[in-house]
């Protein structure tokens, strides 16, 4: 059963030094507040997993939280490079970063296999490309019926998955809506889970019986952090802050401006600082 905690308690319980950690949210519902709290708590040696390690991991990697990154596309979407990730890979600053690189299809299938408790995923991919040359975890199986050779990747089973969601009810059931990404799979694949939510409500108000719901007993900790996905967005609550993404290019390009920004906006702040972004749209 999910327990409702403060974000500080929840991060402390969920994420441990050395863990493999997936913070998911595909453009939408990215758990920025939880990432900031993780940075403040000084977690280190993390093996970070994320299909699109954009600003959220640019910040964590720039602050030295991670020793490894498993990913499929790392950049500032629509803007350009993830400068802090590049600095780590190209110059080992602030520390070396090991990469395990995949395609989106591979990562999505690997989370799906993790949720399904399978040891690996099969898909038709990686045809004619160089990634299997540099990533030994990409292998293959032969179809027992047609003889076709298909690509495989190991299932993703993170020690901890962190996501942001619109809301939970008091029993701890969580609703996800809009662009749902791989969040459900990432939660079901993980050993420990933390869900930050915009609000806790009496009635989940799922719009359909087929809505994407995580039952309380599939979730570890829940923390209420209105605005906690900013500068990403929360469908029905607030919009993506595209100007922030554009501005991040300049902030993150140099180490000094990055560190100054992180001190002012993360290290010296508390989770409550996100509340200013958490406007509830009319339903």
């Amino acid at each position, binding site marked *: 059963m999910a327990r409702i905690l403060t974000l500080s308690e929840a991060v402390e319980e969920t994420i441990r030094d050395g863990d493999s950690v997936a913070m998911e949210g*595909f*453009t*939408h519902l990215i758990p920025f507040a939880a990432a900031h709290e993780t940075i403040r708590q000084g977690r280190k040696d993390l093996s970070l997993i994320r*299909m*699109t390690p954009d600003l959220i991991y640019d910040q964590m990697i720039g602050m030295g939280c991670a020793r490894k990154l498993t*990913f*499929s*596309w*790392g*950049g500032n*979407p*629509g*803007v350009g*490079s*993830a400068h802090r*990730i*590049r600095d780590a*890979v*190209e110059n080992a600053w602030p520390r070396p970063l090991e990469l395990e*690189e995949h*395609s*989106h*299809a591979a990562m*999505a*299938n690997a*989370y*799906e296999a993790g949720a399904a408790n399978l040891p690996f995923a099969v*898909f*038709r*991919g*990686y*045809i*004619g*490309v*160089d*990634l299997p040359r*540099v990533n030994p975890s990409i292998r293959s199986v032969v179809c027992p019926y047609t003889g076709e050779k298909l690509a495989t990747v190991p299932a993703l089973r993170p020690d901890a998955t962190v996501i942001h969601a619109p809301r939970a009810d008091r029993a701890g059931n969580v609703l996800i809506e*809009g*662009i*749902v*990404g*791989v969040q*459900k*799979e990432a939660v079901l694949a993980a050993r420990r889970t933390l869900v930050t939510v915009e609000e806790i409500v009496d009635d989940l108000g799922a719009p359909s019986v087929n809505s*994407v719901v995580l039952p309380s007993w599939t979730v570890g900790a829940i923390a209420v952090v209105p605005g906690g996905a900013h500068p990403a*967005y929360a*469908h029905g609550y607030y*919009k*993506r*802050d*595209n*100007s*922030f*993404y*554009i501005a991040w290019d300049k902030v993150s390009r140099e180490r000094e401006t990055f560190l100054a920004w992180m001190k002012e906006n993360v290290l010296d702040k508390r989770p409550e600082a996100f509340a200013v972004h958490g406007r509830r749209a009319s339903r």
Partner: protein
Amino acid sequence: MSSTHTPTEMMTIAAARALRNEDICFVGIGAPSAACNLARLTHAPDITLIYESGTIATKPNVLPLSIGDGELCDTALCTVSVPEMFRYWLQGGRITVGFLGGAQIDRFANLNTTVVGDYAKPKVRLPGGGGAPEIATNCGEIFIIMALGQRSFVEKLPFITSMGHGPTGRERRAMGLTSRGPTKLITDLCVFEPDAETKEMTVVSLHTGATREQVVANCGWAPRFAVDVVETPAPTALELETLRSMHARTKAAHAGA
């Protein structure tokens, strides 16, 4: 509105024209997104646009900055999970055209968006493949949109992120792939199509005002020209106006918090 147009505008417009009203199109971010939505707002109103974030048949009013802006979901017929998108829709063989861009390309339209230099010690670390490796082989055909340049149109790729026609142009057939691979490469100066035999990307059309010499000067290999190179029709007033007002709406929307 200016009646002259920029090479980038010509590129986007030429790319849009390649799309058909009945296409089911998997849209990459940036230039492909502009071209696909321009097609939708001009000659292909019923085109189905799919973004890898899971949004199906989306009709954005402004261009998304990312592949998952709220605008895409709000205007979609429906939104599915990302595993479903890659399993049922892309791998499912339901996409007629995949639209890609890239950092580097070779004469057989193989793409690199991974690294410049050695993979283990890269000179430049690029964002990586994202959806491209499987888009390249699972869509019916591929359109590529990229501005010409010596650093991006290269003789030999340091890394193949997604396969075009393969390192020698013969690999797709050898592997038994049934999808067609890159059938159009639209640049700011010209349009390439693969030679029927060799699969080498070949200039078939020059944009108004562009010369063969400019193409050669901005291409890292010696490009072949088709026997009959035609002139790309200039943008119509409607195309140019639609594109510019879409960009103006987008700029206004992205500037606000």
